[in-house]
């Protein structure tokens, strides 16, 4: 896969190393003069000096043929503009932005950024998982140490759990609700929390019971 990473700070640097080690074609873009020397020495052909929120730099970086663009700079507004250019000008199929201020997360997704995350490992798993935004179940994270995933599930409006309290739902062994997303709100589930239409669930689940959980919801 060809992946372009903008921002050569801690996140971008480590992500680039990780993805190169996994055998991907990677280009790392950084504008900061003080970082250019070391990055260029280490990454050679896989490094490009320039401001990633400029159209001509992304063109030079070949974003038009990239499957994924990841914006990892420390500035949210820069990450947003980079992802929007990649989509609008270069038709990049997937854009992932690091979000420094959690308040901006919902804005980014409304503005068309495919995914937002805050650490190297998370970004890496997002790229590897090939998240499809339209899927009913989105594996947000596969925890590498174990056979456990964090998934997002959108129960259908006719699901049997609508109107039920958490305490009344029989979850399969090895699955637990982390949070319920209701519109913009994040609800910490308690035994008496009642499910409503359009609620989404973030759950921690063992891979082997994912299907069973899906059936309950």
């Amino acid at each position, binding site marked *: 896969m060809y992946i372009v990473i903008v921002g050569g700070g801690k996140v971008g640097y480590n992500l680039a190393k990780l993805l190169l080690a996994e055998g991907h074609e990677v280009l790392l873009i950084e504008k900061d003069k003080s970082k250019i020397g070391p990055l260029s020495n280490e990454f050679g052909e896989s490094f490009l000096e320039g401001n990633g929120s*400029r*159209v001509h730099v992304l063109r030079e970086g070949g974003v038009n043929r990239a499957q994924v663009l990841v914006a990892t700079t420390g500035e949210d*507004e820069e990450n947003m503009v980079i992802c*929007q250019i990649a989509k*609008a000008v270069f038709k990049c199929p997937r854009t992932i932005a690091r979000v420094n*201020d959690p308040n*901006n997360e919902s*804005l980014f997704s*409304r503005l068309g950024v495919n995914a937002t995350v805050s650490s190297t490992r998370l970004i890496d798993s997002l790229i590897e998982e090939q998240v499809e935004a339209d899927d009913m179940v989105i594996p947000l994270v596969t925890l590498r140490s174990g056979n456990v995933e964090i998934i997002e599930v959108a129960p259908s409006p006719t699901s049997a759990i609508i109107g039920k309290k958490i305490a009344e739902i029989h979850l399969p062994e090895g699955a637990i609700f982390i949070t319920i997303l209701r519109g913009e709100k994040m609800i910490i589930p308690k035994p008496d929390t009642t499910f409503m239409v359009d609620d989404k669930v973030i759950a921690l689940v063992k891979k082997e019971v994912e299907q069973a959980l899906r059936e309950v919801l």
Partner: protein
Amino acid sequence: MIRVVILGSGRVGSSLAGEMAKLGHRIILVDQDTSKFKNLDENDRIERLTGNIFDDEVASAAFSKGVDVFIVVTGKDNVNLMAAQAMQQKYKIPRVLVRVFDPVLSDVYEGLGLETICPTKYAIEVMLKKLQSQ
């Protein structure tokens, strides 16, 4: 009378606030930096608001009373583009004007439906005209 929120009280922001106040409009001028307001003429139609527009409290103070036009003129293109889109979405502002120095970026966002103004383009046009008229 229209209600205007201007983000960025540099040369353009403060002068525009002054001119629009003279025309009888009501202005809220927002900037993170208090020292920026010093260029501003005293005028009871201009309200000064100090803070970061991405803080909910500041944004709500600027927009919750209703606004007809949001003018975005901080010194940074990326900040302008994010502020314009974020506030337009959140507060359903009827009209948003955003300054973008980079002509290419300005065209890209014009294509995405934003009303952008690119001073670089104007400067080039005017200079070319002047040179040609000699």
